[in-house]
């Protein structure tokens, strides 16, 4: 064996390992520095009392013990549950609009885009648009509900009993648009032969939808679930813009309360904030674990 050949051959022999390694290196490096390592660091910081500048004092699980008795934390957690439950309405609503629009009339493409278009707006703009929509007395919402004799004291967002629901409704607007587009794409790919077969069996309307169409829309439904649950637990922008947690802290969710504790005029309690973030992370981890497990099943099935 000549030296030149063995020189070349190490890299060549191992190229099926080296190539992916080199291609992955920059991506993994970035991702590790900004995402993976910070997760561990947050767990660590949650065990300290720290203002972000001075010395950090180790307090063990002190922050978590404090969380248990914290009324604001309890409200935030409870609001997160409301967000999760109500946000899921975006899925049937999106399906409903998709079914409504799945026709071929003149201009339907433009209609579909216009229905989808709230999703493209930033949550900041959605928040502003809806807070004007909800303005007491002069806002369109108040005027329309006024026709039916409904009057919310202080306006939707000014009333602690309704504010969270008002924000969730604003969030449902773009989220429904997203689910709609997922289902429109799914409906496009539904097998016409199965519909025909279903018709011959006498299925129509709801029965057809439930037994023939929905099973074929399963991939779309799965993605709709993933993005809706993640979206619900990530809600921050709308709350920050529309109510800034108020009135009387009634619209806080964990993500917002964490920010408030760690990085706003309410003080720089990095440790306590991190403890809140850890709780939110663990809640999300349940869902992430489920999503990954589902994807793993798909991967196993698709192994080539």
């Amino acid at each position, binding site marked *: 064996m000549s030296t030149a050949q063995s020189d070349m051959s190490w890299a060549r022999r191992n*190229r099926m390992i080296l*190539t*992916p390694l080199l*291609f*992955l290196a*920059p*991506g*993994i490096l*970035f*991702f590790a*520095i*900004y*995402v993976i390592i*910070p*997760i561990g*660091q*947050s767990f660590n910081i949650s065990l300290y009392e720290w203002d*972000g500048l001075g010395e950090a004092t180790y307090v063990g699980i002190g922050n978590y013990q404090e969380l248990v008795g914290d009324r604001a934390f309890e409200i935030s957690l409870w609001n997160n549950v409301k967000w999760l439950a109500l946000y899921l309405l975006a899925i049937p609503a999106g399906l409903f609009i998709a079914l409504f629009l*799945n026709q*071929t*009339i003149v201009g*339907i493409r433009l209609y579909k*885009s*216009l229905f989808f278009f*709230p999703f493209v707006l*930033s949550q*900041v*703009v959605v928040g*502003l*648009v809806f807070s*004007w929509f909800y303005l007491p007395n*002069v806002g369109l919402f108040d*005027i329309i509900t006024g026709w039916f004799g409904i009057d919310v004291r202080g306006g939707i967002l000014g009333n602690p009993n309704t504010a969270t629901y008002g924000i969730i409704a604003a969030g449902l607007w773009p989220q429904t648009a997203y689910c709609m587009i*997922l289902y429109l*794409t*799914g409906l496009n*790919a*539904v097998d016409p032969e199965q519909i025909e077969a279903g018709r011959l069996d006498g299925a129509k309307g709801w029965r*057809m*939808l439930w037994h*023939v169409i929905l099973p074929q829309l399963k991939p779309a439904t799965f*993605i709709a679930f*993933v993005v809706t649950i993640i979206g619900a*637990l990530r809600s*921050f922008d709308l709350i*920050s813009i529309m109510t800034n947690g108020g009135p009387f802290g009634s619209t806080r969710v*964990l*993500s917002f309360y*964490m*920010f408030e504790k*760690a990085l706003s005029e309410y003080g720089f309690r990095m440790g306590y904030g*991190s403890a*809140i*973030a850890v709780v*939110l*992370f663990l809640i999300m981890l349940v869902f*992430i674990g489920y999503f*990954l497990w589902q*994807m793993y099943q798909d991967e196993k099935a*698709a192994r080539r």
Partner: protein
Amino acid sequence: MFPTPIEKRSRGAQVTYQALVPLVLIMWLLPLLAVALFSVRPLADFTNGNYWGMPTSFEFFTNYGKVFLESDMPRYMLNSVLITVPTVIGAVALSCMTGFALGIYRFRGNLLIFFMFIAGNFVPFQILMVPVRDLTVSAGLYDTKLGLVLFHIAFQTGFCTLFMRNFIRALPFELIEAARVEGIAEWRIFWYVVLPLMKPAIAALSVLIFTFIWNDYFWAIVLTQGPDAQPVTAGITSFNSQFVAQYHLMSAGSIVAALPPVAMFFLMQRHFIAGLTLGAVK
């Protein structure tokens, strides 16, 4: 097709449907139409309580002119561009490579690394907030566009890798095998065989990431502070405190801030929707 095509229904049903669609659309977009109406009103309309009647005059140019000439809005918009465009380039470039590595090669830990990217892409921002802010401050990048860009590139690489890897998986593998039989080096396979086939994925991801980053608000307020570096989503709040209760200007400002991703969507609609719905059909 489901539901039954409207052409197969009665004439009456068809007419009703065609009238219903625009009507429902108007209701759907009502909050937005209201803002559009606000943005062309004169200030006097609001002080006189004329919120919903005909505008007494059409002030499109005055209002939007003010947004561009008498506020920091143009600076915020420019910041947004300077944050968004490098992020798109960086995240797409990184994920072309990671997607290629994870989509083409079999090695131990492949799926594990892939799942790490997916999981990371789903975590709540707050679990990253304190350490990332700390890192940015100690690198001297707090309140700079670069600080935001670096974080966005890193975080978006998670979603982009998921996207690219699945896209590459769907490419015909025979092409790569054929190239290997020809003795073509692996990086050349990436550059000359796979990358050209990835063009649709690159286009779709670019418009998606553009929209995601343009619309980011949380990281903008965590990592930046003033008009030097803040993008328009964060800047709009200071804009609104400059023109507090002047709904005509705040509305016009919001519309201006929302416009670039909207334009991107309408121009690149096919790619945008293809990107969003990847995986919605098996």
